[in-house]
């Protein structure tokens, strides 16, 4: 149902934030889903798990925080950052 549409929008927003080439490096995405948003958080998580298990993603996970309002937000995106790793080399 419409949780898949919402999940596809989450992926689109993630791409908008990190760029298409960085999508394979996304490790986690944080969402807020309100209990009055009309979206069933578990269904959304299921749809996202399905999408994130396939290219261009590489098994990224979602962290959903349930809220007591109508929020439906992508809060943050976490990705592997090789530049940070290089920066840590002594």
């Amino acid at each position: 149902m419409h949780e898949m549409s919402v999940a596809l929008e989450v992926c689109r927003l993630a791409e908008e934030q990190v760029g298409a080439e960085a999508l394979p490096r996304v490790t986690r995405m944080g969402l807020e889903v309100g209990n009055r948003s009309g979206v069933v958080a578990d269904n959304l998580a299921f749809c996202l798990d399905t999408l994130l298990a396939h290219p261009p993603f590489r098994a990224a996970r979602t962290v959903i925080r349930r809220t007591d309002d109508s929020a439906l937000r992508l809060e943050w995106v976490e990705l592997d950052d090789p530049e940070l790793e290089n920066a840590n080399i002594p």
Partner: protein
Amino acid sequence: MPVRTIEVKKNILERNDRLAEEVRGRLQEAGVTAFNLISSPGSGKTTLLERTLQELDQEIPIAVITGDPRTLNDAERLARWTNRVVPAVVAGEGGCHLDAAQIAAALDAIDLGEVRLVFIENVGNLVCPAEFDLGEEAKIVVFSVTEGEDKPLKYPLAFREARYAILNKIDLLPHLDFDLPLAIANVRSVNPDLTVFMTAAKTGDGLEPWFRFLRERTGALVA
């Protein structure tokens, strides 16, 4: 590998909402009123629209955008009464709602200079369509006396998001156990501000207030 966290904090439906605002702007600029009809399947939306087109289309030029998971059945029924029907068929059987991008595309097929009223006949579903702003002036939730008095309680978002409600098939009241005062009380408990029309689209009973409302909203009723 070290990770970097990017703060996003964006409404997931922001693209839809942005497109809906563009649609709203186009409609306002053209002086066109648009209503988004949402209901469960079988509430009588299409029959109501047929009656409305029959009564008003000569007086108030009307366009209809229809959404269905499959078939053009509704669009074909409505096309008997107007040539301004745009079927925005939702792809596939999993399609459960219309979105603003579909409405924007459908408007491209309508000469807005020639219409004053647009009805969006959404997919029969009281859950998902309530979520999506389509750029309409208002959502109208349609339910019928064959569906039970507790529809507003079961689907509060649809009734909360709507500004108007139509309780249809009231001609069947003598044959059912439907508790009309309880149904209205349930509507009010979810949304005290809803204006409720009671209609029987099949027989035409109760349609005059609905027609008067549409004339008023489109400026066709001169005091």
